[in-house]
């Protein structure tokens, strides 16, 4: 029988669960310990006995005091005990980038279960990794964009952003003809018939740079560039220092200044751990090229929604892709090229 790998911080409240088979007392001496990459287990990779002692010790830790008190209460039901257990394990888990596949699927299961306990509905959270031979790229056709902002609506619906602060990853700027790419004089809070005479429109969002300054500066490596080129954030690892936000030249990042609120019906239930799963207050988020969609072969919501076809997305490594055709045949440019960030978001005109 393969033994469950227990972390030193695992809080076992005696709930009758398949996964939680605890060996009682001091009689255990299982030495089948899997080497995981998680930093915590590297340090606490010890004999079961000591782990038991640690467990009992840490159960009294201040941080978990609240959880423990609910769990020890005679009156709280199994549900809140399970909730506390999930919260405890989620708090002490490591950086997603360093997790094994098993740990990743475990945390995804916990998150799904946690949502179910809180709201009574089921969601899907994927932990799908990057596929080989893919590097995502994006192209924006300035001639085609008419300033409809359908992309923003689709993005907000798809990615479960906070409704109270009207968070949106995409900005559409109404630029002036003849003034060129002068963002200082552009307007991104226009509300009138579009396209307005004497103006053209262009959109900005996270550019998924190949040399991202935000990744450099994160003190805990909560944000990183995946193999398929998407720059992602582990929302549970982010400490909320906002250094990445100061470092981004393209206004790509958004911060949850308060707890995000979405009504239950509007929640998009097809989620990805690194993408549109529900965030909490005090963490950073951003456009992920709809990782939950693009890693299944679909276009991001903005590309899908644009009625004029101004947005083009695809695999830069596929010589036959539309994005490659655009790069090779249209006059493309990128914004703030001189900063050396190598964004994978190009602009072109008809």
């Amino acid at each position: 029988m393969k033994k469950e790998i227990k972390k030193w911080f695992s809080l076992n409240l005696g709930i009758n669960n398949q996964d939680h088979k605890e060996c009682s007392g001091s009689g255990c001496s299982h030495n089948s310990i899997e080497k995981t990459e998680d930093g915590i287990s590297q340090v606490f990779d010890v004999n079961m006995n000591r782990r038991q002692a640690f467990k009992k010790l840490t159960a009294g830790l201040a941080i978990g005091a609240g959880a423990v008190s609910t769990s020890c209460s005679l009156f709280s039901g199994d549900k809140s005990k399970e909730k506390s257990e999930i919260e405890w394990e989620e708090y002490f888990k490591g950086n997603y980038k360093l997790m094994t596949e098993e740990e990743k699927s475990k945390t995804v299961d916990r998150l799904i279960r946690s949502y179910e306990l809180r709201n009574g509905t089921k969601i899907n959270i994927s932990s799908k990794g990057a596929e080989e031979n893919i590097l995502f790229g994006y192209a924006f056709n300035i001639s085609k964009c008419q300033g409809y902002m359908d992309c923003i609506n689709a993005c907000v619906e798809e990615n479960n952003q906070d409704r109270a602060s009207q968070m949106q990853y995409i900005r559409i700027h109404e630029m002036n003809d003849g003034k060129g790419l002068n963002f200082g004089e552009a307007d991104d809070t226009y509300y009138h018939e579009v396209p307005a005479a004497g103006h053209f429109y262009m959109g900005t969002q996270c550019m998924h740079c190949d040399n991202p300054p935000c990744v450099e500066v994160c003190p805990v490596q909560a944000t990183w560039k995946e193999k398929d080129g998407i720059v992602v954030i582990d929302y549970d690892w982010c400490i909320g220092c906002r250094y990445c936000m100061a470092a981004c030249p393209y206004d790509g990042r958004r911060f949850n200044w308060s707890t995000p609120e979405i009504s239950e019906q509007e929640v998009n239930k097809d989620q990805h751990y690194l993408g549109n799963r529900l965030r909490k207050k005090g963490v950073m988020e951003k456009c992920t090229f709809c990782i939950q969609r693009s890693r299944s072969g679909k276009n991001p919501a903005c590309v899908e929604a644009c009625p004029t076809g101004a947005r083009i997305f695809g695999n830069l490594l596929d010589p036959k892709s539309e994005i490659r055709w655009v790069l090779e045949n249209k006059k493309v440019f990128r914004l703030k090229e001189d900063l050396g960030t190598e964004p994978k978001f190009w602009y072109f005109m008809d």
Partner: protein
Amino acid sequence: MSVLKNLIRDSLVYLTSGRKSYHIWMALLTFLMLIGMYCYSLQLEHGLSVTGMNDRVSWGLYISNFTFLVGVAAAAVMLVLPAYVLKDIDFKQAVLIGEGLAVAALFMCLAFVIADMGGPARLWHMIPVIGVFNFPNSMLTWDVLALNGYLFINLSIPFYILIMRYQGKTPNPKIYIPGVFISVFWAVAIHLVTAFLYQGLQARPFWNNALLGPRFLASAFAAGPSLIIIALAVIRKFTDFKIDDKTIKKIALVVTVAAQINLIMLISELFKEFYAPTHHSESAYYLFFGLHGKSALVPWIWTAITMNVTATVILTFHKLRNNLNVLYFACILLFLGIWIEKGFGLIVPGFIPGPWGKIAEYLPTYTEIGVTIGIWAMGAFIFSILARTGIAIELGKIKLKK
């Protein structure tokens, strides 16, 4: 161990007794700290939305104060350097006060950083091995190492000296002198590293210039010792601790030179921004003249510059500088001026205009101001405790009873 227990007990006894003015001072500080704690609890409950920060200006009052206070902490070295390296005895009395100030300032820095965090409960993620410490890529990690190391040095060396004096023994120079030397270099390092935090961001042209680091050092060595002078003045008035006029005048000389260099650097920056303005000068325009009708910081920066220039001019004249009352006035002016100029006069304009040229002004909320005042009160509280204990031990008022 028992020495330590005795020291703590004796210090506590000493600290809880004193003149009426002392008690009123500590009570006031405690009250302000409680206000700060209440405001912080509001922030923990609702998130950082209770502050005035937003997606455009994502660092505000907390980080401004942090930046300024790192400089103040670094300035303690300005006393340590002459006292031990140049063997100038006049400075020796002031060193303990300076170290105490550095410790208090460092605690304030750490408090401001924690107050600014979106997820303070997750700060353990930064600890190496159990978390992920992104060293050497992230300048923040360098700053964490630098500040905590400096705190350790500034706690351990005076602690060693004081505990020796407490026992009536002479502290062994072989132990503390190496630490003193390290702290001199470390002080320069902490402030340079903090400057590099901002200097390394190619996205913010207001900060991304070569002069930011040296400017930080110059303004630190002007503001820090100014505060030390004020502190020494207060100590002279309220305790029996003897501080020579000579000491204060020598520190004043340090302040003067630093203030003059700071002014030269300011002129250099103004020239670069306004001689041939580019798109990158927009932040400077916002700060000094207002941009597209938004000019919230303009009165602040001009007040700060006036204060700095006035103070520097006063300090330049020997006659005025050597008049202690005028000196104290100049120091207060300089301290406040640099607090504005290097605090929110540096951090906030870095974010305005935003990456796409949009201007969203920043105004701190009462909660934010409350937490800030609470942390300053905490710093004053810590400094009062450390200074009072240190002076008492030096004067022999607290002695280990055999």
